[in-house]
């Protein structure tokens, strides 16, 4: 039995088909595109908030999308412990909706960046990184203009203390340096989870790194970790 991944589509979302292809063609699971006007996740086992420019990033990235009808269902799903992953614009929506702390600001360079990036796994745990080891270096593309993660000192300290920092930008050797930081994020943060650990937001695009022909399969570490958890939860 395959499990079901609900991929939320806001106006301006553009990674939904990439996620759907990764989930169906590579993981062999079921993907369902859920339009933002829906109120119900239709029995999904995992929720994906994909990348793009919801509402054109007008006002602030994610600031309008968070008011979409579907977001109430996403919050309920998350609060019930369901796995939610938001990548790129999805991370921004999660921050704007309060499901994750902090905010994403304009890249320090003031320019968009599309490039492959090294990420150090800071926390190897279900549901998102159970197949990794702490300190592993993953090579995963980024593609964003507003990925500069910001949180105040107190929040940052709490993220560190709770092990909520999932990934940091690093060098190929796993060193977390200023030069390896593509957007100015505090503490080189590329992705964080909520306190319970079941909601992940990250700027990189794991769905773009699931086939060798497209330049690497490191994104599968994240996707297969999710798949494992989803299977356990669904009793598959």
């Amino acid at each position, binding site marked *: 039995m395959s499990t079901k991944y609900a991929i939320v589509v806001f106006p*301006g979302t553009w990674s939904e088909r990439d996620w759907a*292809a990764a989930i169906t063609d590579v993981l062999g699971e079921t993907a369902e595109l859920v339009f933002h006007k829906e109120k119900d996740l239709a029995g999904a086992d995992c929720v994906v908030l994909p990348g793009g420019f919801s509402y054109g990033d007008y006002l602030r990235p994610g600031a309008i999308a968070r008011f979409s009808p579907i977001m109430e269902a996403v919050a309920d799903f998350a609060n019930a412990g369901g796995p939610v992953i938001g990548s790129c614009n999805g991370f921004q929506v999660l921050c704007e909706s309060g499901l994750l702390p902090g905010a994403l600001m304009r890249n320090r360079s003031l320019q968009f960046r599309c490039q492959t990036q090294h990420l150090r796994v800071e926390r190897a745990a279900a549901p998102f990184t159970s197949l990794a080891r702490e300190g592993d270096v993953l090579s995963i593309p980024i593609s964003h203009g507003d990925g500069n993660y910001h949180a105040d000192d107190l929040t940052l300290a709490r993220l560190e203390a709770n092990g909520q920092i999932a990934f940091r930008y690093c060098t190929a050797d796993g060193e977390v340096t200023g030069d390896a930081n593509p957007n100015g994020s505090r503490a080189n943060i590329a992705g964080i989870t909520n306190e319970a650990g079941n909601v992940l937001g990250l700027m990189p695009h794991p769905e773009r790194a699931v086939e060798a022909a497209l330049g690497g399969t490191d994104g599968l570490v994240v996707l297969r970790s999710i798949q494992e958890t989803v299977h356990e939860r669904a009793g598959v």
Partner: protein
Amino acid sequence: MPVSQETLDRIALTADEYALIVQKLGREPNEVELGMFGALWSEHCGYKHSKPLLRMLPSEGPAVRVAAGEENAGVVDIGGGLSVVFKIESHNHPSAIEPYQGAATGVGGIIRDILAMGARPIALLNSLRFGMLDDPHNRYLFEGVVAGISAYGNCIGIPDVGGEVGFAPSYAGNPLVNAMCVGLLPEGGLVRAAATTPGSTLMLVGSATGRDGIHGASGLASRTFGDGEREMRPTVQVGDPFLEKVLVEACLEAARSGHLAALQDLGAAGLTSSAVECAARGGTGVEIDVALVPRREPGMTPYEVMLSESQERMLLIVREGEERPIADIFERWDLSATVIGRVTGDGLARILDGGEVVAEVDIKPLSEPPLYRSEPQRPAYLAALHEAPLPELPPPTEAGALLRALLASPNIASKRSVYRQYDHEVQTNTLVRPGEGDAAVLRIRGTAKAIAMAVDGNGRMAYLEPYAGGAMAAAEACRNVACAGARPLALTDCLNFGDPERPDVYYQLAEAVRGIADAAKALGVPVVSGNVSLYNESGGEAIYPTPVVGAVGLLEDADARLTAGFVEPGDAVLLLGADALDGDPASLAGSEYLAHVHGLVIGAPSIDLALEARVQALLVALAEARLLRSAHDCADGGLAVAVAESAILGGVGFVGDPTLTTTLSLPRERGHDGGRWDAALFGEAASRVVVSCAADDAAAVAARAEAAGVPALRLGSVGGERISLGGLIDEPLEPLAEAHGTGLERALAG
């Protein structure tokens, strides 16, 4: 004459053309009618000066499903029921005035052309030219254009996978911004833009109509302008990529719904050209009530509504009675879809304002502007530049330093600082990314196939010999596609020239088109779409004539694709297309070496199209036989730069055969029969490709080349951490990579 010269000037019509309109109508046109004529008879919409020339281009081929000019873009069959749709278009004048919005709306416009065919846009490319970067205004234009393309393309989720950026003094103040879009059509997905059935409903969707862009086609794109250009900023439209993204999704849903009879974009000359072109294609008429058109601001006149170039609008022609399901689709995407009129059977364009007729003219004269064939005159400068003997060039510094300088030249240096601002991976089909190969390669999901695409043009070559420049642009675009292992399928062209009413410019245009036509015929690829941008001059000087050609090719097996970087130490490196480094001084014509190092643009470029065709066919056959590890054509900077780029991309050195250049002399050594070493290293003779293959396959590659009638030369082998070439160059790789990697950013920093 009842209209003033000033009025005619504003819409770029001549007094003779006005008289012709009066004659065709049998009366004086009113203001709205005259505005419609002005827009449709503009060079931009009507191709008055170029259409007779464009007929030279071959448009037919076995894979062509829709030929150039029939629809918004050409359609080419790639097998398995799938087709690709592609077109290139310029947005030069708006970008000169307002670089960010000019470039952004250029991207938006070409996407709607592809969308209008019912195709999902899957790739963007662009070809850009600017003046030299030491001038802050050119830096402003460059940075603004790149930021505009980045902002629009990234927001809309179409990967920007390739292109080129070039710099020459000739483009100062008049940058070239040519955007190409490629779309994929599923079986049965083609949507026409012909209004064939009277009674069908016209629905306008997308953005509300404002006063922006009025006279864009006639005023901005169809004449030259001088120092007052910045005052024209209000005529440049402002793009809303978010709206366009939503429009793409909604229109594709509508196209698949079965309720649409036709789909047409609104571009230059807005509603006027959109509706009139649909009716002209279908042999019908249209009736539009401008009072029904949703407005962005109050008080707009019928004239303004009909000529507005507000962006992100599409015209739907909906089967009668099926408006509701179409409106529902757009409502779901929070877009308005408004009935504004209907298709009629009377062959008229009838414009109403709340029921009152404000314009009524035959479609036929509107859509058939006068065509002009000027008397071409070979420009006087050509003879002087051709005959210029290669002068007493100052003794060159050593070859290694020259190579380093050329690699750092903005024309040759890595464009990474540009393309990293473009999302080139969204849609997850990009197999060969920008900077990795001579062409971008995208897989066709659900099949084993892939398509390769490239865009090329060399204004310096076209300036020195317009015919050769046109032929070389088409040949290089196809060669780049062939270097990716793909068989070139079809071309699209963008002709960037000066004022065609000048006999010397008209000569350049006519000759360049003849060159593209001859190359396309020699290579067996039709030209399926295109665009003409004339009047590119500033301060009375025409830009370099710049024919830009986009090519799309097919790989039946995506795994046969090739990239440009060397792969394995020990691999053999060969040159295809030449069997000696003879250092013929003629090969320096139009080279980046002469321009960048010596400040000279001289010589008589030429190309042997029969050889070119053999080289390309060989490349594709070698790729299909999996005999090659890399392929990279010799373009700007010649052989030495091509070899260095393959080494830099592969992160591995090259050991050249030191005996290759023993017959060459230094430029200053007179009385030596051998060629010049600078020409051997940096000359830009066409049709040459540097390939690498497993050492064991080198004999097979050479044998196949011989059988194909392609001269070949073994250059050396991959390996080490240096680049040595013909005993002339022996440089560590790292500083060369550094020069290549940072040259553009250094030039930008001033």
